[in-house]
């Protein structure tokens, strides 16, 4: 997997070769594509299960945003951590989570990452370094900064990559946390996944600046905006920010402009977006289509190769849904378990 692999050595390459094709091997990049497929199938599988009444509650699908999760996370090293948010399935998968346990969680089963207690909005893979999704918009941002604070305190080399949405940047939590991270030069990257809307409210109607990265100026830290549907652009900007964070120079804001193909959550009638807008993004700006094309252009893949990866992704998701279905539900008697840490007497 790219996340755990090493970037290919920088060699002499033509300046117009995109970043990832300069720094990652064919296998690594195909693995990124594979992850994008898995995310897409995962979300489709979740949507389908939801519609069939197998999953309840609510969920926020990231279809259309796969390049952000994969492009950002591929730049991380083994021990780095991520903070996810409510739209976190893609982050989780890209970070290497076991989709069986993810689906099991959505099905409310004990084999799930949260043993059926958390569901989609609290999905985490804590032990691997995914600090978890969050049901509170912006709620994860100070926690991520705290994780980075601990990293610095313990003099570790880790970096924390903190995902948040364009809507989240208007929360006070964002402000307080970014200020402290900047002040103390903590090893964190603030990655704003700008899909144009915070639920139904467009960025223009919610934030007083055109780009979320403009906020960076108010904190004296770097802020960049990139095409969030281009794996390479995301990876390039994030890797620069990660390097900066790792070398002790402090945080940056990387804004990735993208789009969610689906509604905000299950019950969205999409009255705040035009059909044309949605169609344009689906047909002309799909991140997977684009990455496939680029891979082909660089001779790193073919329709056959892609199709095989797609099949593999589908099989993985089908297996995960089966796993989830066949898993046990928690016992009602255990309803108050995990509230407090069980202590040896």
């Amino acid at each position: 997997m790219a996340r755990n692999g090493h970037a290919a050595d920088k060699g002499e390459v033509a300046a117009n070769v995109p970043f990832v094709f300069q720094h990652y091997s064919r296998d690594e990049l195909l693995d990124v594509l594979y992850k994008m497929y898995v995310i897409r199938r995962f979300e489709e599988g979740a949507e389908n299960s939801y519609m069939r009444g197998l999953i309840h509650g609510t969920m926020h699908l990231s279809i259309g945003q796969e390049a952000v999760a994969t492009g950002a996370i591929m730049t991380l090293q083994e021990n780095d951590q991520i903070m996810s948010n409510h739209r976190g399935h893609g982050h989780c998968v890209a970070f290497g989570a076991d989709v069986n346990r993810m689906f099991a969680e959505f099905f409310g089963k004990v084999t799930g990452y949260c043993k059926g207690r958390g569901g989609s909005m609290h999905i985490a893979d804590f032990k691997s370094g995914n600090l978890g999704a969050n049901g509170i918009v912006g709620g994860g941002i100070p926690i991520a900064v705290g994780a980075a604070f601990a990293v610095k305190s313990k003099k570790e080399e880790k970096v924390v990559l903190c995902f948040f949405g364009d809507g989240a940047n208007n929360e006070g939590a964002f402000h307080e946390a970014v200020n402290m991270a900047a002040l103390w030069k903590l090893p964190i990257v603030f990655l704003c996944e700008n899909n144009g809307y915070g639920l139904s409210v467009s960025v223009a109607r919610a934030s007083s600046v055109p780009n979320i990265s403009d906020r960076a100026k108010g904190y004296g830290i770097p802020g960049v905006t990139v095409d969030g549907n281009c794996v390479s652009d995301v990876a390039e900007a994030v890797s620069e920010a990660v390097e900066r964070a790792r070398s002790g120079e402090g945080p940056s804001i990387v804004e990735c402009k993208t789009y969610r193909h689906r509604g905000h959550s299950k019950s969205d009638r999409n009255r705040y977006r035009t059909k044309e807008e949605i169609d344009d993004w689906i047909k002309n700006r799909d991140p997977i289509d684009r990455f496939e094309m680029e891979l082909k252009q660089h001779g790193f893949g073919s329709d056959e190769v892609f199709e095989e990866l797609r099949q593999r992704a589908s099989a993985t998701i089908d297996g995960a849904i089966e796993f989830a279905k066949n898993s046990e539900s928690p016992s009602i008697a255990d309803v108050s378990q995990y509230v407090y840490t069980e202590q040896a007497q």
Partner: protein
Amino acid sequence: MTQEARELSYAIAIREAMGLAMEADPTVFLMGEDVGVYGGAFQVSGDLIDRFGPERVIETPIAELGGAGLCVGAAMNGMKPIFEIQFSDFATLALDQIVNQAAKARFMLGGEVSVPLVVRMPAGSGTGAAAQHSQSLEAWFAHVPGLKVVQPSTPYEAKGMLLAALEDPDPVMVFEHKLLYKMVGEVPEGYYTVPLDKAKVVREGKDLTIVASSIMVHKALEAAEKLTEEGLDIEVIDLRIARPMDKQTIIESVKKTSRLMCVHEAVKTLGIGAEISAMICESEAFDYLDAPIVRLGGTENPIPYNPELEKASVPQVPGIIEAARDLAKGVR
């Protein structure tokens, strides 16, 4: 306007109340996240944006503290804001403005200002939205002098209490239960108010009093109905207002039935049942009690995602039946 009754859903009854208030008073406005073209997370505001435009139905950025503060300031300056917090759980972000500012401003300023703020908050579990989207936090607010706290249990109450809240010069917190939004019931047309200081006996009985709030009123009624088969005659009181509590209605009922049970969805410890129980103990009704007061409330855990665990975390009809039966039959 005629006072003819029709059937409306709880959500639409609330919307009707907001519409009536906005028509009647140009200083009333609705502010919150996604209350505009989206129609509100629970489709309560619906088409208000079309009727009143974006100057009176104001979508905020995702910023609960700021939004609440804005409404406090607007209220101080002569407006009547309705602030919708998308889920009552997010009130945790706005509490400084609600508790330290809105609730105390009049007192701190020696009566020189009023803060006629109405905060509407969808509350409660049952939607599979897990621990951060399912809490019942009304007891916190009921602990705060300066606030009024209401929990309408029917479309009728939802409309009438919201209109009363909008007439009230002080901050009123309205906890709307998410599972009630689709409940349909009789709602008079036109303007009417339900006073914010009276509980309501929704079923008369002589063997036992159940005081329930919000959605638990319906569960208590269902339990009471079932228990008639066992010959039990249960009185059910809809608390309606957690602060100021209508002690008298509860006291009178307990004096009649000599047995009291409180049912609410909030975590049992320090839920409103604790106050009701303690209040009765201090009252003249204490001497009438034939059995200890029983409380049913949420279990001592956050609301879990798994639907069975979720249900097990708050009182359900079978549990109410069992507890009521035990209470009615056991004599101490």
